[in-house]
């Protein structure tokens, strides 16, 4: 049965073709990318928690940055990883990148670390290293807790990790001062919390894509997590904290305007729905 063409202003408002909405959204995004109107970014408590957790890592311990993300979430997780690496270099904390799932992330994070390391004159193997992608997930974590050189064996460049200067004295989980999980995958945090943070008390912080972050607030509230970066917003806040506004700050600025457009569209849709209902025979189907 063919649908009758919309008549009346409010009914037309309820049936805006989706192409117009796509075009409007693209228009707002392009406008704000080319001619940005900057909005303030204030770091939240969850973001401050991540920065403080990195700051509180003792000198003799290292940070693990588990980068379980790939190209499909890069606009959020890429800047998060970069901001965390910036914080580690600024606060002079040695770190190891590793990956339990989505192995593309370990290459993408390696590129980010190489780029950032140049700015701080940081050396691979001395200030940071990359353990590469490791299979086994939970089993691998249990092995890491007991014997890191044996469990990790070789790094991203296929060199034995025990030969890296920064790995001297890094024996087991007691040598780890903080784990930061950057991910767009559900299930990874549960592994870290259940097998490492819970049994050994290793501090844990995280960075998630915005879509999965709400499910992890209870862990923040219970104190199992020291802090959490939420999507591009968390990355932008972290970039602001480390004084390196980059792609996340640019994205968040555009994002705020895009959200404004969506809010306006939701209001129009709802007002149109209720106005349509008020006129018998027009709004109801």
């Amino acid at each position, binding site marked *: 049965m063919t649908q009758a063409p919309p008549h009346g202003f409010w009914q037309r408002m309820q049936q805006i073709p989706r192409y117009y909405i796509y075009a409007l959204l693209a228009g707002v995004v392009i406008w704000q990318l080319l001619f940005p109107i900057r909005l303030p970014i204030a770091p939240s408590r969850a973001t401050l928690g991540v920065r403080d957790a990195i700051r509180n890592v003792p000198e003799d311990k290292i940070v693990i940055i588990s980068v379980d993300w790939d190209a499909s979430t890069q606009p959020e997780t890429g800047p998060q990883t970069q901001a965390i690496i910036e914080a580690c270099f600024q606060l002079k904390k040695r770190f190891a990148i590793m990956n339990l799932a989505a192995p593309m992330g370990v290459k993408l994070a390696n590129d980010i670390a190489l780029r950032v390391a140049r700015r701080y004159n940081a050396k691979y193997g001395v200030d940071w290293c990359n353990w590469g992608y490791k299979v086994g997930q939970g089993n691998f974590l249990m092995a890491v807790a007991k014997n890191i050189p044996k469990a990790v064996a070789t790094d991203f460049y296929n060199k034995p990790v025990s030969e890296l200067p920064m790995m001297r004295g890094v024996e087991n989980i007691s040598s780890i001062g903080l784990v930061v999980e950057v991910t767009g995958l559900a299930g990874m945090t549960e592994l870290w919390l259940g097998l490492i943070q819970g049994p050994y008390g290793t501090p844990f912080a995280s960075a998630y894509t915005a879509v999965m972050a709400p499910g992890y607030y209870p862990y923040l509230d219970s104190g199992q997590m020291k802090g959490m970066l939420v999507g591009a917003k968390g990355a932008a806040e972290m970039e602001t904290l480390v004084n390196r506004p980059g792609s996340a700050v640019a994205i968040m600025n*555009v994002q705020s305007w895009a959200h404004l457009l969506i809010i306006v569209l939701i209001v129009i849709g709802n007002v149109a729905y209720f106005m349509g209902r008020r006129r018998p025979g027009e709004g109801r189907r």
Partner: protein
Amino acid sequence: MNPQLWILSAGAIATVLRGLTAALRDPQLWILWAGAIATLGVYTILYRENPVSRFFEHIFVGLSAGYLLVATWAFNLEGRWWDPMIHERRWYWIFAPVVGFLFYFIYSRRLSWLARLVMGLFFGAGAGTFFREFFPLYSPQLYASFKPLRPDAQVGWAAVILHNWLFVIVLLTVLSYFFFALPHEGRAGRNLGRAALLGRWFMMIAFGAMFGNTVMARISLFIGRMRFLLKDWLGSFIPWLAHRGM
């Protein structure tokens, strides 16, 4: 067509062709162009389902699967299995893939019990790991749900009281929504029904917040791609775009 539009279109085509010619000379730019074409190809789905979008989708899935295979070999099997077996003469490692290949006996009716052996091993290991993981993961949340409703005076005391009361009310009402043993009849049942209704409202608010975050995530990805198209790709042959503050 309007002559001004002709001039504008010709100018745009000339600019893109200039970029393409430059890309042909510089292999680094090939990557940019491949990324831009793949992005635009995938976005054709916004118009309707079409073979171009499907083509690029399949390329992405294929690339990811291929990369996983290479990464599994390069970061794990080569160093931990192949090298010890070949160079350190740990010949017994040859039995590891033999055990792995037992999975394929699932296709044989007569010998499928061999596949069940390794599956049982995996189920047992998985269950054991989950059991070990469960209590350290969830027990701290159980303790954290016991919040003082009359906390000692401190800075931000009113906010703490409000937070704790709200937490406990939401926790109890949402739990009551999932309590199915008592029908919502009689005095106690009706009160439970009211609490469950309130719990449902709280859950709806939470789902709204989650949906808001989903919108935020999707738009972030879209902005990321637009930034790539404008700054990295178009910016490679229109310098003005490369120098915009994005």
